[in-house]
Each structure stands twice: as structure tokens, then as C-alpha cells.
């Protein structure tokens, strides 16, 4: 591990890469603060830049810096405006906004920054411990297990989508997989489902799809519903200091939530949102008497808990990405797409083939967290001015960046028409409450899923690999249970509510 750290240090601490961390964190904070633009949209917008760099280490460092910055920026707008930019920071606004209303905006931002820093750093330490271990286990996996593991990942993403949503999420996953089969397949060079359209020969571009699924609907919602971007009075932010007693009070919260958040983040599909809500709920239940009553009215513990948990979960979500090559969230799916475009295949072999990429990312996580704490915190009062940009300027620019992002990747204006078309479809899907992250994850995993499936089929001359490899069978059973159990329980609950259950 020590060698790895040194290797990572030597790869990450170059002037260019350090600049990437700082640049990524600042850009991420700037854009993440804008209500409605979450990390997924920001990373999607930054991908052409990252790919343009050409160096996978620098690109991944830049993108993870953007990711952290976006989460941090999202908490800033939650605290100052009660307008969370990201679902993962909604819980931050429960106590952060009341604190800002009481004139403690500076203190709230400091606590958020310290909690994020601690969550991110402890998460990175855990990642450093668990990822190599997991990837050495993963090296024993065959294509059959990989196939089964990806099925588990996809069904877990659907299963965590919430009650009544499992079917919808599953539908979106399958739609993503179907879209992934368009174009020339890996098995033979036969173009599939292109319907004779030349531009579809190489399949849909994932950047276009990512922009259309996340950035474009958000921008359109900002247009349609001005309340979403309600401009608050971001008054003067003063008093960034916290007292010793307050630090003592939040320390155990940070410790607990770093661990809990990290492990929730590792689970596919759970991610920062669930981690932050759960962290908030757990801390409210643990707190006693007066402290509990203060939750929701500006409790520092209630602010520290979701902030720590969501950053730890973000780090945790890198574990399946880096060790198995399976993204557990929309954001890591986008990162995976960027890595594949840069000719790096994340997975167990990442650590043996290109260890410098893996360790540089870990080191850049520490540096990124430090940058957020040291550089961004004092700058927050100035950065917060971005919230005052009028939407008449902001929205055309957001739309323009989505257009640019998908144009630069392909240099083809058909791509822009596809972007608008998919964007409209995505907006309609959002209206009907269909989750979109599963679609993108399905799309990105589709090719890998089919490759591994094909390899297993060829090795075993048919479907017998499912029965002959116990681990594959076990994983597939888990995948089925993950989907069936929540729907069954939802059905039971509904029947009981109607009074026809078995009582």
C-alpha cells in the first residue's frame, strides 16, 4: 500500500495534475452552486474537456475534483438559499438553511466544509483499504461472474429506486440496455438496429445521452418553473469560525457518518442521497432531549450528519467503479464512460495494469478535499455571488454548454439533433416520474454485459454456465430477489391498506 501511495503521489503531485485538482474543485463549486445543476450534469459538461486532455490520470483527477466541488457547491446553495442543487444535499438544507436564517450562514458553511472534508478524507482512507482487497477477490471472477455481477448491479439500482418505482427503474434500465445495442456489436462487425442510418453506425454517443438525460431536462425545468431557481437574498456571510464546544459536539457525528456513508455509497444504486437522508435520520434518533428538539431548527449536528455522509458516500461509490468496473450511480457511470473513452478500463486489472491511475485518484481525493477546505471556504462569500447571475443569461449559457459538449465529441451536427430529441424524451420521462440514472447506467454497462455474457456462452457452449458455476447462480438469484422482494412487499402493504390482507 505504501508503494502505491508513493506511486500515486508521484503521479498526482505534478504541476499539471495539481492544477487540475484546483481547477476541478473551483469549477465544480461554481457550477454546483447553481440550483438545478447536479454533479451529473456538470461532469457530463466537463467530459469533453477531460477527454481533450488525453491523459487518463489528469482527466480522472479533474473529474473527481469537479465531483467533489459540485457536492460542496450544492450544499452552499442549500444552506444559503434553501435551493439544493442536488438531491444529495436536500438533507443539508433541513438544518443548514435555518442556521443561515439565524444569521449563522458563515458558521453553517464552515461546518459543512469541515464535515465534507472529514467525510471525504475518511472515505478515501477506507477506499484505500477496501479497494485493493476487493479487486484481488475480483481477479478470481470469470466472465460468467462478471455478467452476473453486472446483473446484480443493475437490479440493485432498480431496487433502491423506492417504492412503486422498481418497475419503472427496471424499465429504464432495459431501455438503456436496448439503446446500448444500437450500432456495431462487439461480437461481429454487423451493424445492428441502425435502420440504415449512417450516423448510428457507431451507436449513440454517451456524452450526448448524458447531456440529454440530465443537463437538458434540468435546464428546461429552470425555464418552465422559475420558482426552482428562486433568487434569494444572499446577504453578507460573516463569522466563519466555530467554537471548540461545537467542534467537540460534531466530532462523533462525523466519525459515525463517515463510516455509514461510505458503506452505503459502496452499494450500487444507493449513493449520496440515501446516505445523507439516512445519516440525518440516524443522528436525530441518537441525539437526546434538547439536542433532538433542535434538529430541523438549525442544529449543527443535523447539518454535519448529511454533509459527512454524502461526501463519504461519494467516495464509497468509487469502490465498485475502480475495482469491478461497475458504476453504482449515474455520476460514476459517467466517469466510467469517460475512462473508456480514454482507453482505460476500470476493473480489477486497473490496479495491476495501470496502478498509477488508481493511486493518483486516491491521492487527488485527499488533495481535492484539502483544496475545498483551504481554498474554497474563504472564497465562498465571493463565489456565492454567482447566485446573483440573472437567469436570462444563465439558461442560454447552460443550454449552449450542453450543445457544445455533445458537438465537440463528434463534430457532427446530427448529434445536436439527437441531443434535442433525447432531451425532450428525457423531460417527458421526468414528468412521468421515471428515474433516468438507470437508463444511462444500463446504456454504459450494456456493451460490457453483452461481452461477458457472450464470452461465458462461448466457453460453456450455451446457457449451462448459469447452473455450472455456483457463484454465478447465487449472484443471479440475488439479482432476482432484489427486484422481486420490494415489489412483493409493496403489494402486501397495498393489500393490507385496502383491508384484504391476511389478518
Amino acid at each position: 500500500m505504501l508503494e502505491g501511495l508513493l506511486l500515486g503521489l508521484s503521479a498526482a503531485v505534478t504541476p499539471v495534475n495539481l492544477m487540475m485538482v484546483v481547477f476541478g474543485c473551483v469549477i465544480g463549486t461554481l457550477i454546483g452552486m447553481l440550483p438545478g445543476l447536479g454533479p451529473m450534469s456538470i461532469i457530463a459538461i466537463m467530459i469533453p474537456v477531460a477527454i481533450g486532455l488525453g491523459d487518463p490520470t489528469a482527466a480522472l483527477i479533474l473529474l473527481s475534483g469537479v465531483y467533489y466541488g459540485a457536492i460542496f457547491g450544492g450544499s452552499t446553495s442549500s444552506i444559503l438559499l434553501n435551493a439544493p442543487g442536488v438531491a444529495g444535499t436536500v438533507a443539508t438544507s433541513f438544518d443548514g438553511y435555518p442556521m443561515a436564517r439565524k444569521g449563522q450562514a458563515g458558521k453553517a458553511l464552515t461546518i459543512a466544509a469541515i464535515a465534507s472534508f472529514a467525510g471525504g478524507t475518511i472515505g478515501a482512507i477506507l477506499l484505500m483499504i477496501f479497494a485493493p482487497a476487493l479487486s484481488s477477490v475480483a481477479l478470481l471472477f470469470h466472465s460468467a461472474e462478471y455478467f452476473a455481477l453486472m446483473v446484480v448491479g443493475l437490479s440493485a439500482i432498480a431496487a433502491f429506486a423506492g417504492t412503486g418505482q422498481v418497475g419503472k427503474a427496471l424499465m429504464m434500465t432495459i431501455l438503456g440496455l436496448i439503446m446500448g445495442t444500437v450500432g456495431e456489436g462487439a461480437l461481429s462487425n454487423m451493424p445492428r438496429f441502425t435502420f440504415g442510418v449512417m450516423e448510428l453506425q457507431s451507436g449513440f454517443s454517451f456524452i450526448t445521452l448524458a447531456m440529454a438525460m440530465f443537463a437538458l431536462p434540468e435546464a428546461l425545468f429552470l425555464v418552465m418553473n422559475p420558482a426552482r431557481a428562486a433568487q434569494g437574498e444572499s446577504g453578507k456571510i460573516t463569522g466563519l469560525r466555530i467554537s471548540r464546544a461545537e467542534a467537540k459536539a460534531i466530532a462523533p457525528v462525523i466519525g459515525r457518518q463517515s463510516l455509514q456513508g461510505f458503506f452505503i455509497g459502496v452499494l450500487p444504486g444507493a449513493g449520496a442521497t440515501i446516505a445523507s437522508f439516512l445519516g440525518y435520520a440516524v443522528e436525530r434518533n441518537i441525539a437526546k432531549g434538547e439536542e433532538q428538539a433542535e434538529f430541523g431548527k438549525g442544529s449543527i449536528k443535523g447539518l454535519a450528519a448529511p454533509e459527512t455522509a454524502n461526501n463519504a458516500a461519494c467516495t464509497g461509490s468509487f469502490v465498485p467503479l475502480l475495482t469491478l468496473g461497475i458504476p453504482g450511480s449515474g455520476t460514476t457511470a459517467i466517469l466510467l464512460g469517460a475512462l473508456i473513452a480514454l482507453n482505460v478500463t476500470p476493473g480489477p486489472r486497473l490496479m495491476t495494469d495501470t496502478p498509477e491511475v488508481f493511486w493518483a485518484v486516491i491521492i487527488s481525493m485527499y488533495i481535492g478535499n484539502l483544496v475545498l477546505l483551504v481554498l474554497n471556504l474563504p472564497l465562498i462569500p465571493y463565489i456565492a455571488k454567482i447566485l446573483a447571475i440573472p437567469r436570462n443569461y444563465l439558461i442560454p449559457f447552460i443550454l449552449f454548454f450542453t450543445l457544445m459538449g455533445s458537438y465537440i465529441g463528434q463534430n457532427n451536427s446530427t448529434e445536436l439533433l439527437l441531443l434535442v430529441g433525447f432531451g425532450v424524451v428525457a423531460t417527458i420521462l421526468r414528468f412521468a416520474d421515471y428515474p433516468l440514472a438507470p437508463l444511462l447506467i444500463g446504456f454504459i454497462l450494456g456493451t460490457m454485459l453483452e461481452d461477458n455474457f457472450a464470452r461465458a456462452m462461448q466457453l460453456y457452449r450455451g446457457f449451462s454456465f448459469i447452473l455450472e458455476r455456483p457463484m454465478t447462480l447465487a449472484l443471479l438469484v440475488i439479482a432476482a430477489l432484489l427486484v422481486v422482494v420490494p415489489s412483493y412487499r409493496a403489494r402486501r402493504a397495498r393489500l393490507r391498506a385496502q383491508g384484504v390482507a391476511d389478518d
Partner: protein
Amino acid sequence: MALDRWIALAFVAICCVYGYAAFFTMDHLLPPILQRNPIWPSTFPKILAIAGVVVGLFVLLSPKPAPKDGEEAKDGVIDLSRIGDYHVGQAIALLVLMVAYAMTLRSLGFLGATIGFLVLGGAILGERKFHIMIPVAAIAAGSIWYLVQEVLGIYLSPLPSFL
């Protein structure tokens, strides 16, 4: 029928078309040597088509979950039942503008199309201070062109095609 059911119905239809293409139009194109493979290019799509129809029908036919108690529409959350309150016209105008941008990017050149897009986009949203908007758009278009062309090294034709 609610919008999500219509989407499920459309999804089932897409799966049927997709399944038809996978089951009936692909296999005869396969060279004989590949036909001895246990897996064909159409195998995975066939599985997906069947799974898609099953899941789509499940969503289409399953009863709607009862609304939870104490769940109220929050401000800023998009809700279809309030569609009348939204600026749908502006959104559609912006989409049309994006299509126009895609069409004119080559003929007007990057700089012209971008400045036009940013200024008109602002105008659609109600911006009337063009003496600020136009210089901002011009500076932004110029600096982004410079970044993409010189820093990232991706060619973007800046001027109209007839120049």
C-alpha cells in the same frame, strides 16, 4: 390514463418493434460459420426484447400506489398537474432555437451561430437589455472558440461558410 402508463405502453411498442427486428430480420444475414456459435448478435437483443415486454406490461398493468400521507407538493418540484403554471412556451421556443443552432452551425460559422443563440435565448426568456447581452455573448463565444480550438485542439470553423 396517466402519462406514466402511456410511456409504458410506448415502451412495450418499442420493445415489440425491437424484438421483431431481432427475431426476424437479423439471423439470415449471419455468415454460416458464425451460425455454429452458441451466441449470435441477435441473442442478447432477443432476451432484452422479451424482458422489456414483461417489465413494460408489469408497469402498465400494476395498480397505482396510494399517495402517501403528508406528502405535499414542494415549491420547485416539477408536478405535471400544474403544467398550466409553467412557461412551456418558452421551453419549446428554446428547443426550437437549439435545433436552429444545430442547422446553422455550419453555414453561419461557430461565432455567428453562437452569438445568435445566446442573444435570442436571452430574448426568449425576456431579456431586453441588448446593449449588455450582445457584448457578453460575443465575448463568451470568442473565448470559448479560442479555448476549444487552441487549448483542446478541436477544429471549429469560426466564420460563415461563404467567407
